[in-house]
């Protein structure tokens, strides 16, 4: 991980004055990424939290060129923006998409796959808050096992969501994309370094950043960064990269923190019983067996 300090990134703000909930992880990811990419970033955001809170005429909150796409069309609009600007002779710009988990893993996955297939010169950042938060916390393809949402209620018969998250990072990598990475707003310097790296690579780049939603997760607004960190520390999320056909692990917790403690802090998981937690812990361990056997470790 790059050792960034607050002084080393731009003081310029590109996303401010918006109406995001207090403690919004998604807005933190967008804000940090735009500080890295600078004023020549052209951001494309689909229908979703960030567009809903940032683009309410006449209160428009991006100071760089930004546009809302259709829900399914983040990647395809990025393609058009990039091709159009290139056709007009521009060279010094970055077309960057910020889409949520539903906009990426569900409705937008076809367009994303198409863009990666064409190797369009774009950065696609998925800010993953693990449900359709903008519409009021419904299950998406990236909602984790056991999470209570408004469409996966936690009752006596079913304990919230019955399916694990799609592995978007490895789905992107399976296209043999030039660069893909996972990140967490709990490890902001790592995320910032990955955005920077992505901006220097030609072709399609995919960054999947865990961005907690206090409203949907049932944590306090000032716990966003802490819970995003704990997602990584407990081993339920991981920081990795895919580049030149190889997977690299960027951060290896010496010892995982308690899965149960991570889960029970959040309203969406509070209903889980011992058996549910055992299932989640087992799936974490299985995931790490895979990571340890097939990812190189970049650290010491």
């Amino acid at each position, binding site marked *: 991980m790059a050792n960034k300090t607050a002084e080393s990134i731009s003081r310029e703000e590109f996303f401010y004055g918006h109406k995001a909930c207090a403690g919004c992880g998604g807005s933190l990811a967008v804000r940090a990424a735009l500080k890295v990419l600078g*004023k*020549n970033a*052209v951001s*494309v955001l689909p229908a979703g939290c960030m*567009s*809903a809170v*940032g*683009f*309410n*005429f*006449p209160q*428009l*909150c*991006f*100071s*760089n*060129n*930004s*546009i*809302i*796409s*259709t829900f*399914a*069309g983040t*990647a*395809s*609009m*990025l*393609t*058009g*923006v*990039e*091709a*159009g*600007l*290139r*056709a*007009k002779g*521009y060279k010094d*710009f970055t077309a960057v998409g910020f889409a949520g988990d539903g906009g990426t893993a569900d409705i937008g996955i*076809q*367009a994303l*796959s*198409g863009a990666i*297939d*064409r190797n369009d010169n774009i950065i696609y950042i998925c800010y993953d808050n693990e449900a359709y938060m903008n519409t009021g916390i419904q299950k998406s393809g990236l909602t984790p096992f056991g999470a209570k949402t408004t469409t996966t209620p936690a009752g006596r018969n079913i304990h919230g969501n019955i399916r694990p998250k799609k592995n978007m990072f490895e789905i992107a990598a399976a296209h043999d994309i030039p660069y893909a990475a996972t990140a967490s707003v709990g490890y902001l310097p790592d995320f910032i370094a990955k955005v920077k790296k992505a901006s220097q690579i030609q072709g399609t780049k995919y960054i999947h950043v865990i961005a907690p939603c206090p409203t949907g997760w049932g944590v306090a607004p000032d716990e966003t960064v802490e819970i995003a960190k704990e997602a990584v520390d407990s081993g339920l999320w991981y920081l990795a990269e895919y580049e030149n056909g190889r997977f690299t692990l960027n951060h290896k917790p010496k010892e995982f923190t308690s899965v149960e403690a991570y889960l029970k802090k959040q309203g969406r998981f509070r209903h889980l019983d011992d058996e549910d937690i055992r299932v989640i812990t087992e799936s974490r361990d299985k995931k790490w067996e895979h990571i340890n056997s097939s990812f190189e470790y970049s650290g010491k």
Partner: protein
Amino acid sequence: MSRKFLSGNEAFAEGIRLARPEVISAYPITPQTIVVERLSEMVEDGSLKAEYVHVESEHSALSCAIGASAAGARAFTATSSQGLLYMAECLYYAAGGRFPIVMMNADRSTALPWNIYGDQRDSLSQLDSGWIQAYAENAQEALDLALMSYKIAENKAVSTPFMANLDGFVLTHTYETVEIPDREQADRFLPPYETDNRIDFDDPKNMAFSAGPDTNYIFKYREHEGVLAAKAVIAETEKEFAEIFGRQYTGLTESYLTEDADYILITLGSIAGLCRETADKLRSRGVKAGVLRIRYMRPFPNEEIARELKNAKGYGVLEKDISFGNEGAVYTNVNSALKKAGLTIKGGNFIGGLGGRNISAADIEGIFADIADGKDGVHFLGIGGSDNG
């Protein structure tokens, strides 16, 4: 100028080559595919300098074109039928964003039942999407429309996307001799696209935003004004086109023997030729028949229709469309034009050509006879006839 023997699709592609789009998003669908095939060849041989994007769906085709247009580039795509319906969300988006994209639509039947042949149920279902909608009759008109479409769409008062419709197979795949304008003349007619409605690094913009109940209607009103403004711009553009290329078009409609006609058949697209021939035949028998071809469904030619029909005894609307549970969309629009003009002429709606079913000269003669009988209401050609019960 040169002459070539081209299909409707190929003629349209030639017109697009002359219009110099900077971004083309391409996805195949019968019977449109030949357009994007020809354009890919033009990009390959260097006669068209454009970013050619192989999108993975029609939704992405138009979404990509919107992105390109937002970047200030001239954008083109083409589709048909299910593809048009699949991208429908983006139609409204492009229009609301005032992006003057041009799209060719090969008019084709919509499933179910599946059918690849021509009718107009695809495009007519999208009249409310905010696009200018033109319907070509022949390959020459298709080529000329391709060139004129950008000039109309990009006019600052209009700033509206343009859908050029060609009847599937009957026009898209039929070969005719076509005059192809010279490159220099085309460039003189159509200058490069200039707009403020674009990404600007000196003055960054937030585009395609939300507007709440207090302002939303203003944007919609302006969108409406943009489409209406196209009326005058179409007339100006055709005048300039005639001065440079020598071919004269007639605005939102094209009249044939309507001036003294008792019975006028209103239609659109490639069937108009047979309607005119039939009118000639009837005229030789002393029946005062006329034909009014609608060239633009949006903006709609309310005044033109009222003007042409004001002395008629009866009219019929022949269309390849039905709005189930009511009548054809063209008939609804025509009746509205007549009502607004205070005209009370009897007229019927003749639904034909669905799923590519042939409309014969005898069918059209029958329609004129029905008009003369004062028949109104909705009639499906063939239903109840001798050939299919």
